[in-house]
């Protein structure tokens, strides 16, 4: 009933909109647009830009790791005082790893991924005219852009950007004199992050309210595609977890600027006794990871949702265990709030707490395992169409397995003692949330590119992009596990100070060249992306023969998404290759009455009238056959 009312309201509003038509100017169409499709594109393009910046930073420090003693005059020309004599300075190296991590985790894989696909897909897949609050939605993008600009601007202050690691643990980040990056650079980092969280909250509240209130007629929660489920639960996670980081950051700002001692105690810096007393650096870590761990699920869940959808469409087969997929997403959402302590096993936290967090951490592996098996079962006996999106979705599953399994080591407190903060951790999270999430994002870009830009991307360049990136990522991150097993710590400017690690120098060089190869492959993507926006092949309305609602909307973007009435939804989104139906897909807005030959009793579980109709139809069919 309630969905019906909202639906009608949306319709009325739309007709009103036609009467007082706003003049479409360049500014309100492309810049200060309140249309969710345009905001999605703004998020995507900003996200891709940030991803390229983040990738370039990583290549810079990879060069340092591969050639620790070599001078590259070009670096000095480009970076000036940050690379005296053509070698990165140790402080700038720290800045690079810090900003690389921050950009990738927050600006690319949180805002770039959720921001793009929640904006694009939530209204289109649930059948809504726009977000619940288009204005707040627009603000969400602008806060994100401001946060991005502030974050990058830190490269232009004298002492360089923040350099305490993306986790910015105090006291290192709290004492402006502790290292160059803890001065103005850290202030900018904190300001940027507050803006970013503002953006994330405005976006998240919008996504939640849109999903809960604005679904079209017939779209009950159990008929929503897994993308919408994933984006919805991601938004819930973000809304609940991000404010805690604001609290942590605000207290840090107080410690830095107003002389409080929330995180500081008993400190002697550079021979000078500091007046701070009574605080605890561990408190910040609790606050940080209370967001930080849900954050990694905020990153991976949209990628899971996108991959589920893409794999189902391109296997021409329903996603296996739809309910199990949703329940495991819910399980991950709930559990992700009680596992944060596994980042702190060796910080001096009470060992008993460590034991508790170990148990909760390993429990969260169960829903993750269920999801993996369900993806495999979705491929089984499918009729797989290898679009680039499909390849990226398969790649996502492969990375998720490889990286997820090493999580079982790190979640075990006893094993974490020796693996904590080594390259093993770096390999783990770059596979499971870095590469997997970025592959989910790329799968989404290739899959919904026609919806966004009304043109197709070039498939062959997509294949090239996929294979080089996929192989490159494994070549980069697989050997890192073994460096970690020998205890090589992360965030080390050079490992040549210790001669027992000299045998890893070759491996480091190999990793760097693999990274450069994978980086160059991204140029194939960016060329394909830009070229296809303007000169790509024009798309048809439903290029992938998919069931979900966004493909029933017209190719030309209209404000309000559908011309006339919003389609009504009659079935779940995964009726692919249903026996008895001629085509191998049945869109969600096709009523059961039009597909009598393919209906199953299961389709009418909560619809007794429909079941009666169905039974009548089957009995007459039987009677007819007997007559024959």
């Amino acid at each position, binding site marked *: 009933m309630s969905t019906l009312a909202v639906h009608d309201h949306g319709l009325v509003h739309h007709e009103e909109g036609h009467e007082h038509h706003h003049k479409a100017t360049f500014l309100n169409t492309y810049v200060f647009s309140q249309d969710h499709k345009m905001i999605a594109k703004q998020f995507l393009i900003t996200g891709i830009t940030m991803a390229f910046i983040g990738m370039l930073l990583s290549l810079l420090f990879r060069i340092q790791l591969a050639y620790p003693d070599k001078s590259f005059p070009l670096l000095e020309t480009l970076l000036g005082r940050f690379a005296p004599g053509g070698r990165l300075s140790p402080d700038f190296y720290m800045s690079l790893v810090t900003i690389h991590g921050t950009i990738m985790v927050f600006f690319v894989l949180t805002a770039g991924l959720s921001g793009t696909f929640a904006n694009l897909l939530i209204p289109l897949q649930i059948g809504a005219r726009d977000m619940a609050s288009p204005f707040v939605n627009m603000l969400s993008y602008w806060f994100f852009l401001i946060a991005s600009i502030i974050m990058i601007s830190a490269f232009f202050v004298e002492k360089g950007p923040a350099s305490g690691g993306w986790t910015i643990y105090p006291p290192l980040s709290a004492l402006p004199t502790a290292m160059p990056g803890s001065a103005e650079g850290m202030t900018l980092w904190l300001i940027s992050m507050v803006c970013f969280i503002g953006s994330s909250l405005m976006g998240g509240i919008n996504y939640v309210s849109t999903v809960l209130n604005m679904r079209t007629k017939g779209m009950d929660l159990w008929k929503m595609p897994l993308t919408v489920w994933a984006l919805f639960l991601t938004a819930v996670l973000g809304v609940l977890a991000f404010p805690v980081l604001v609290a942590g950051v605000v207290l840090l700002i107080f410690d830095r600027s107003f002389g409080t001692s929330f995180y500081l105690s008993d400190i002697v810096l550079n021979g000078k006794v500091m007046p701070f007393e009574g605080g605890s650096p561990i408190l910040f870590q609790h606050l940080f990871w209370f967001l930080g761990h849900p954050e990694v699920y905020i990153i991976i869940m949209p990628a899971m949702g996108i991959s589920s959808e893409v794999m189902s469409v391109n296997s021409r087969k329903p996603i296996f265990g739809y309910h199990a997929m949703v329940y495991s997403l819910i399980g991950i959402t709930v559990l992700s709030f009680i596992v944060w302590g596994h980042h702190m096993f060796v910080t001096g936290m009470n*060992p008993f707490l460590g034991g508790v967090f170990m148990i909760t951490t390993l429990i969260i592996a169960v829903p993750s395992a269920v999801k993996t098996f369900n993806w495999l079962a979705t491929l089984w006996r499918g009729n797989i169409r290898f679009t680039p999106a499909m390849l990226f979705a398969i790649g996502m599953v492969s990375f998720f397995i490889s990286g997820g399994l090493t999580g079982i080591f790190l979640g075990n407190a006893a094993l974490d003692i020796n693996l904590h903060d080594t390259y093993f951790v770096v390999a783990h999270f770059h596979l499971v949330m870095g590469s997997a999430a970025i592959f989910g994002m790329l799968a989404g870009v290739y899959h919904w590119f026609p919806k966004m830009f009304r043109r197709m991307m070039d498939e062959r360049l997509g294949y090239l992009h996929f294979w080089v990136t996929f192989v490159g990522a494994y070549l980069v991150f697989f050997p890192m596990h073994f460096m970690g097993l020998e205890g090589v710590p992360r965030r080390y400017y050079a490992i040549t100070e210790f001669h027992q690690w000299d045998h890893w120098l070759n491996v480091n060089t190999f990793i760097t060249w693999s990274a450069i190869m994978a980086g160059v492959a991204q140029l194939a993507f960016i060329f394909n992306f830009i070229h296809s926006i303007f000169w790509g092949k024009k798309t048809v309305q439903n290029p992938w023969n998919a069931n979900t609602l966004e493909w029933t909307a017209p190719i030309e973007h209209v404000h309000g998404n559908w011309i006339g009435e919003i389609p009504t939804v009659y079935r779940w989104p995964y009726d692919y290759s249903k026996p008895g139906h001629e085509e191998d897909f049945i869109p969600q807005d096709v009523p059961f009455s039009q597909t009598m030959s393919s209906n199953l009793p299961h389709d009418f579980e909560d619809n007794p009238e429909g079941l009666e109709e169905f039974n009548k139809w089957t009995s007459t069919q039987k009677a007819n056959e007997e007559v024959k």
Partner: protein
Amino acid sequence: MGFRKLITSKKSLLLFAASTLLGTHQLMAQGTTAAATPDAAGSSGMWIGVLYYVLIFLVGCVCLAILGKILKVYDLTLKMQGKKPINWNTIMGIVCLIFIIAGMYGAYWSLTVQGSMSLPRSASAHGVDIDNMFNLTTILTLIVFVITQVLLFGFAFVYRGSEKRKAYFLPHNNTIEKVWTIIPAIVLTILVVFGFFTWQTVENSTNVKGDLNIDITGHQFAWELRYPGPDGKLGALNYTLTTGLNKLGIDFKDPNSLDDLQADTLVLPVNKSIRLNIHAQDVIHSVFMPHFRLQQNAVPGLPTFFKFIPTITTDQMRAETNNPKFEYLLYCNKICGGIHYNMQKVVRVVSQAEYQDWIAKQKPYLTDQLKQQLKVAAAKSASGQLSSNKLALNN
């Protein structure tokens, strides 16, 4: 066509940009004095190097574009002749198959070659438990890794798309879903139970005193060691007393502190239980001794500790690893500033007799200079309560 045009135009643009840059640089070099000439020559050499890489990249792009065109032309001729166009589903399916075969071989190679480069056997008693736990986890996860990856790419190859087939409609199967929820749950329960007990034995927080208690204090960018003197006890610390001479802030009013010794190397007697009291002065550091499977953060204001029993002497490990230069090392493993990467300390495990010899040679923290300073301070404090308060605060 547009494709190639764009590439050529991009190429000429880049060439133009590079040559302009080169030109301005040479102009600037001409403007400066003769002393700068070799520098200018070096920088033009650098730009030539850059140009070289850019050219290689562009040549690669052009080759790729030509390859793409050839494929397209081939595809079109096939279509014109009424044959089937290139079937990308089959090609990608085969590439998936090649990938999984090559990938599995690569993973095997990496595991055997690079895996054998990892740490020697644990040099501490608790480390043996951790290593057993590690081996169990590795075996279980490797089995899952191989099965799932092979299935993933195997399915991708076997069920690659074809016009003739329709996929099998299989929305769910409750039995199999239950099975693959319960099996991982059981396996993980086993790992959790073993892990929990291992963790408890390692941390062992009930029996906290060791045979030998050593203070280790991290600051930017070094570690300081403090051994107890003949009394076997370490004196109290008070960070407000830290000065240039009393760099740890030892409270010398505590009689236990008078004989505390300083040392450069962390020398440990073998088979004795050692308790490291871990402190940090400025920012968070982390005591990381991978050979002993030991790591604990050093947190300012929150003293931590780690208790362990070293079981293999440095000499034994040298013989075992066939490396006469082998040393156990202690690293800093929590980002603490620019020189974080070079905060190492040599750890040497020796026999009890060697340890006694060594400890007898170490110097106390209470140096003559420090004694002098403390005397002056004491005299000052006698002259007036007020000024001594001030002194303590200003320290």
